[in-house]
Each structure stands twice: as C-alpha cells, then as structure tokens.
C-alpha cells in the first residue's frame, strides 16, 4: 500500500466503551470491535493524517518495529476500507 490518507466514513455509528471501540455500519449494520491498535488508527483517520504518520504513532504507542506497525496498519485499513468504514485518498483532505 502506498502512502494514503484514511478518513472515517460518516455512514457509521461509533462509540468507545470500556477501552473498546465499537463501530456499526449504517449500510448493512455490521458491527466491528476494534482493539487498541485499531482504535488508534480509527481515531487518527481524520483524512489529514497519513499512513506513514499513523505507522510512526503505532511504533511509539505500542513499541513495535516499523515493519510490524506498517503490516498491522495496512491490514486493518484495507479490511475496514473493504467494508466502506474507512475511505482512502492519496492526498490529505483540505481545510
């Protein structure tokens, strides 16, 4: 995956409870539960933060190697993007 800027879809309902991020797709009401890594990526996915920056945050937060962090982030982002929960852009969102 080349560098990209993930954005949270607006077609979801999301809520943090007990350290767990729960997301429900309004398209098909599929429920997703995110772990710590997923929650960090989800919270960072504002359309202005690049995949590279997210990987760097994961390395610091979870003390993992850049290779591991990139692999985890790419897998997660691709999975959520395939469900339309994250939208991917090759450039940062304006304003």
């Amino acid at each position: 995956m080349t560098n990209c800027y993930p954005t949270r879809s607006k077609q979801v309902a999301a809520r943090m409870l007990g350290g767990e991020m729960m997301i429900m797709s309004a398209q098909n009401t599929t429920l997703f539960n995110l772990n710590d890594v997923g929650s960090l990526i989800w919270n960072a996915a504002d359309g202005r933060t690049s995949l590279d920056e997210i990987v760097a945050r994961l390395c610091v937060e979870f003390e993992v190697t850049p290779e591991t962090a990139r692999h985890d982030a790419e897998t997660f982002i691709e999975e959520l993007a395939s469900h339309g929960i994250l939208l991917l852009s090759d450039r940062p969102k304006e304003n």
Partner: protein
Amino acid sequence: MTLTIDIGAMPIAVTTDSPEFAALLQDRYGSFINPSPASEASLDVDLIPSRTIEEDEDVSVRLESNRWIITRGDFRAEWDPATGRGRVRQSINPYSIDGVLRILHSLMLARQGGFLVHAASAVRNGRAFIFAGVSGAGKTTLSRLAPPDVEVLTDEISYVRPAADGYEAFGTPFAGELARIGANLRAPLAALYLLVQGPENRIEPVDPAEAARAVLRNILFFAHDEELVGQVFQSVFDFVARVPVRRLIFTPDARAWELIA
C-alpha cells in the same frame, strides 16, 4: 373494516375490506386486538392473489421522499412517518402483515429510544426480565420451563421502550418456536440476561462493553438508514448504562428460574 393491533402501547389500525383477512388478524393477534379505535399509525391492506411466498428474500427498508418503502418477496408496503398512514400489498396470509408490523414497530420505536431485540422476556412479581441469545441459546426452552407465577411476554422478539425511570418491556405476539403469542402486559425492566447453556445454573457479571456488543448483535435492524442506525446504536449504550446485564448459564430444567426473581 378496521382492527387495531396494539403492541407496545403503539396501536396500529389495519384496514381491510376482506372479512376473511380480518378474521385471520383477529385469530392471529388475539388479546393484542384493541377495541378502542385510537391509533398511532394506520395501514390499508390491498390483497392480491396468492402466489409462492418467498420469505427468505431479503427485506429492504428505505426512505424515499420521506416515505418508508418496505419490501420483501411476499409484500410491499409504504408508510409515511409524518402522517402515520401507509399501505400494504400482500396476499391473504398472516406472515406478511406480521413482517410489516415488526418493521413498522422497529421504525417507530427507534425514534423513541426503544428497540426490538431477539430475546425472550417474562414478567415475575411485577418486574420484567429479558433473555437474549442467538437461535439455540435457549430462549424457547426457558420460556417453556417458566413456572406458573411467570407470564411469558414473548419467546422470540422482545419489545423495549424507555420509561420515566429506566425501561419497560412489553409483551408481543411475535412468537418463535413456542408458536404462542405472548401475554399482553407491560412491566418495568429489572435485568437483561445473556443466555448460555451450561452444566449448572448460575449468574455471572458482564462488563459494559460486552453487554453493549451482545445487545447490538441481537437487535432487529431493518432500515439501512444512517440516522436511524445512529439512534438505535445510541439507545443501546443508554440501555446498558441503566439496565443490569448479566450472563445466565443454565441447564435446561426449571430450576434455572430459581435464579430469576
């Protein structure tokens, strides 16, 4: 003729010109038929010739020009939430109108912070208890084992509405394997139990995240509508913050009810 089907204190008036269909409704909804004509919503039923019912066909619920369009293999309905009026086109059978009523209630309830959930429920000593679980978890078994002082509200689909102090559960005619309509009662909700069959009867605590996840997984969602999904999602979190949710591990015999009081 018009019959008012009063579920969850949200009466829906169903009008048909077929005495045969009216008799079928009377038979199907029994004690849920309310003789008083006041209603929150109304449906005119247009009957069409019978054809093969494809109940498995996916239901579609969508908002078009401020009207809900509800379709399944065996019916097509339209309902205007602003006026509360709608129409159903179906053949003479009890399953189609039942499907329409479930969906209509889920739409009306969502706006009020309530929901329908795949769960049995029952009233004991004036308090309601909900038993949620997937098919095979024991909803029907537990309902069948209910002792005489317990009134079963439903063995399949529970009806939950916020009340001044907590939540209320209502009986529904939406039956599962028990094939018996629930008691037409309402009671303040005391607890929701997640059902698991096991080697002994006991109750375990459930943390709030698991409670929310479990309730969300068992909610009846029909409308793939952003606003409504958001409302129901929010309602479930409000619910688990106010209603105790626990796990009921039970052996399939009547002693499980000794834990429910």
